[in-house]
């Protein structure tokens, strides 16, 4: 039943949209085909040769290309240093980090930035995550002033192969720790994003922990 809904909507849309030429086309093709089509454009294209012997089943399948075993892609360049001019962060050393046994992201000491090595390298699809302390064991961390960063500020990443890439802040956010959007922060696909993260909000002296995460999202400048 739910599958007939799009059919009705398509027909109505065509009628209201004034595209009278396609109206009959939408009803000529086999109902089963139309119900799984989500755009009127497809209906138009298919209806032109609806009478041809193209299999109705074939129209609903998709060629995915070759499964032949290819060469392994060259490893991506690894980020080695991070600079944020607006925060006076200059070539802060970057180390690659994973996860702790309790499932949390591993974080290096106060004078280093951790790059999440199980995610993308910055500039590749998905979110490349850099985390650093706001303060650790009584020392201010590299991201001490991350909550001062502003949209438009520039971050430069230096890679181990000597190359550099620049990113510009597109969005800043502060989340209660239990509301950190980990699916976005650690996204493995989607447009290339560089995500900076530290702590913020209130410091709880008995838990020795902050209430919030401060996050800044950036996009490549020379995409």
């Amino acid at each position, binding site marked *: 039943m739910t599958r007939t*809904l*799009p059919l009705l*909507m398509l027909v*109505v*849309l065509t009628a*209201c949209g004034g595209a009278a030429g396609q109206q009959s086309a939408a009803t000529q093709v086999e109902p089963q085909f139309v119900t*799984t089509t*989500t755009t009127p454009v497809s209906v138009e294209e298919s209806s032109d040769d609806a009478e041809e*012997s193209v*299999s*109705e*089943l074939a129209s609903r*399948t*998709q*060629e*995915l*290309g*070759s*499964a*032949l*075993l290819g*060469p*392994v892609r060259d490893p991506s360049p690894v980020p080695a240093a991070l600079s944020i001019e607006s925060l*006076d962060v200059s070539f802060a050393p970057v180390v690659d980090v*994973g*996860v702790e046994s*309790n*499932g*949390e*992201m591993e*974080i290096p000491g106060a004078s280093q930035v951790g790059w999440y090595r*199980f*995610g993308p390298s910055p500039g590749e699809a998905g979110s490349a995550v850099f*985390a*650093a*302390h706001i*303060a*650790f*064991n*009584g*020392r*201010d*961390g590299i991201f*001490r*002033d991350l909550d001062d960063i502003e949209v438009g500020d520039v971050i430069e990443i230096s890679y181990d192969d000597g190359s550099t890439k620049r990113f510009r802040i597109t969005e800043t956010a502060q989340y209660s*720790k239990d509301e*950190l959007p*980990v699916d976005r922060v*650690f996204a*493995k*696909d989607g447009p290339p994003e560089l995500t900076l*993260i*530290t*702590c913020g909000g209130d*410091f709880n*002296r008995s838990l*020795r*922990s*902050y209430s919030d*995460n401060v996050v800044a999202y950036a996009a490549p400048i020379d995409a």
Partner: protein
Amino acid sequence: MRKLISLLTAALLMAVIAIPASAQEEARIHLIHGIPDTPVDVVAGGDVVFADFQFGDTQDLSALAGETLVGLQVRLAGTETVAIDAGDTALPASGNYTIIAHLDEAGTPTLAVFENDTSSIAAGEGRLIVRHTAQAPAVDVKANGSVAFAGLTNPNSVQADLPVGTITAEVVPAGADEPVVIGPVDLPIADGSALIVYAVGSLDAGSVSALTESITGLGTAPTAVNTGNSPVGSTVPAWAAGLGALLLVGAVGSRRALVGARS
């Protein structure tokens, strides 16, 4: 009329929004052609579904989930010669499956249906799945020189979750070191992804090789990012020396108090 249109527009939007939401629960069914040197036509319901389907190519059948392919046949391309007569074939309504047209151990073309394990993978690991779908006896699969999977036979599947990285794999006859049937090949183990490797082809014809498919999005993101265990301002950034000098007294004092209370 205007009200009607806006109502319909709203309904249309709801329908459009509803489609991706329900799509996530739908099946994912892929069909792989795993018989070398044998272009085929796939026929169902009396129609050619795919003409000239080539070795190594993949088709996405997900939109046909839950339906029955009536009189499913695989024919040599452009001929009436039936290579595989599968009969009426019901596709699963949900779940993640791969159907592969391949040679059985005796070299006869056949279809195998594998259910793919999409359970979540721990952070820092990827899943390697190896399937024997070749005309060949039992094999061992070596990873980085040691036997990882022993005695794998057609049409069976073995798997393991491994740390991310690249492993060098070889397929050898079970219990032997040579001849190497496939490889050595480098296989990328990616965080949160399943890499499925099919041994395909014919040992007798010297056409054994590997096909792959991957399933992404099975990973586990870190649960939290804890980046601070002490209050800010304990040390003095150069730019804030003046202000910091005032704060420092209080900060160091309170830290001492904390340390003192604990010891």
